[in-house]
């Protein structure tokens, strides 16, 4: 009988205590904020959308290799002699045209593994976190600064340069072969292959 009433009383008492707590909280100022109108101050180490400072990028592909989800795609074209690519801010000389630097933020997992390997500190995470899109394709960000035409030109230039170089090489090889052939007329068998090989390369 005593337990019966004790239990009843305990129930009422603990409920009262709980009600006291919640009642007190009616007058505690809110901890939430009105998000789109009021925005929280984000800490400086915030890890959100990546940004690539293409002025400094040397196209070394380190970030792409560090990425665990392969969301960074980089394509580069070697520069031809005479191109001035400039220098990065920490004095490294650029040698590659970056014709493609895509980051797919639909894949990105914001782990920051791509940041430390960068030799010029040109890829880093910003505090931009509002970049939702209606199309998945819109999350594919292209950071490369060259226009499409420029990219084609660079590719073409490099190809031409390569052709030229190959041709030069072939010519040089031919010359050398001829020189050799002239020097050693006795062994023609071995030499006949080589020029054809070079031809293939130039094609």
């Amino acid at each position, binding site marked *: 009988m005593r337990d019966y009433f004790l*239990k009843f009383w*305990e*129930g009422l*008492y*603990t*409920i009262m*205590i*709980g009600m*006291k*707590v*919640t009642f007190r*909280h009616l007058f505690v100022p809110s*901890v939430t904020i009105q998000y789109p109108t009021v925005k929280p101050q984000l*800490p400086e*180490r*915030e*890890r959100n959308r990546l940004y690539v400072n293409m002025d400094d990028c040397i196209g070394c592909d380190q970030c792409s290799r*560090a*990425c*665990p989800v392969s969301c960074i795609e980089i394509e580069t074209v070697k520069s031809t002699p005479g191109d001035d690519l400039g220098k990065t801010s920490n004095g490294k000389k650029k040698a590659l045209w970056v014709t493609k630097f895509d980051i797919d933020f639909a894949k990105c*997992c*914001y*782990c*920051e*593994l791509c940041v*430390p390997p960068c030799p010029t500190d040109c890829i880093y*995470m910003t505090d931009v976190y509002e970049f939702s899109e209606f199309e998945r394709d819109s999350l594919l960000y292209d950071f490369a600064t060259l226009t499409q035409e420029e990219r084609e030109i660079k590719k073409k230039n490099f190809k031409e340069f390569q052709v030229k170089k190959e041709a030069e090489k072939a010519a040089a090889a031919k010359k050398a072969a001829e020189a050799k052939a002239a020097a050693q007329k006795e062994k023609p068998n071995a030499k006949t292959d080589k020029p054809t090989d070079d031809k293939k390369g130039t094609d």
Partner: protein
Amino acid sequence: MALKTEEMVLNMGPQHPSTHGVLRLELQLEGEIIKDVIPHIGYLHRCFEKHSEAMTYPQVIPYTDRMDYLASMYNEFGYALAMERLMGIEVPERVEYIRVIMGELQRIASHLVALGTYGADIGAFTPFLFCFRDRERILHLFEITCGARLLYNYIWIGGLSNDLHPDFIRLTKEFIKDFKPNLKELNDLLSFNAIFIERTADVGILPLETAINYGVTGPNLRASGMKWDLRKDDPYSVYNKFDYEIPVGSGEKGKIGDCWDRYFIRVREMEESLKIIEQAIEQIPDGDVKSAIPKRVKPPEGQIYTRVENPRGELGYFIISDGSLNPSRVKVRAPSFVTMQVFPELCKGFMVADVVAILGSIDIVLGEIDR
């Protein structure tokens, strides 16, 4: 005339408010009494183990974050520890201290989610938001340190991605100061509420023998009355330098190993974690947190099983290295995966409403069960 009755099969989940994710339970009911429970898992399978075979060792860390997403810090901790033992890396003292602080903060954050959602499962919604309010401050501490709130990629093999933020110590001290009264408030509001005790005491009792045989670890095992904590029993990092207690279930409100014990052990563990953090931030030495990070993670051929005391129990990493840059096998012994097996045993003979109470009390995370 005999009344014809039949068992009802009730499908709970994968979309259900209180299965804590995408767990599907097949309940066989007689009225509201549970005859049997068949859990079906795998709805959140993200192929962690297959993925990690294709990754280099440091790249696995972001994936470990995504297993137990409520205790990411500890997942990284365990993985980093395993790799360091495999490679024989000596980690600077400061790193160890920071890891312990982060781990314990993460334990508090994880337990807060567990307790809050448990309250919500039982029907009290307010404690849930109070818990989340406090957790938010811990997440802010993580955010200022490493820039992310949930999936940190903070603990690296041999070191940390960042040193502590200059404000970190001050903010942590403030948090501890504010958190203690909040914990008392939680007790007033929920833990000692008569209805809550009525709902949880003597429900889902897990006897110690069964618990060990089923491999249950962590707070659930301790609630069944065994003083077993890897931080003390198989010490790692610098845990042996601190003074703290291992709370054990006492059956205060019902029998040992009931839901209330499992609930309250977590409340008490948070207090102990606060003690550890307080001591650790007093003792923390200076040093460089990145000095021991290897340039190239290429462990020797071999295998290792390393375990840590995750907020949910024993988190084990079984790593086989074939001497290349990618692991040959990473098997995770996920505490929730093991604990989930004992669930049907706990439920038999209780009611539908108790399924929710028991499921909440064993505190599973589906991300970890399915990996």
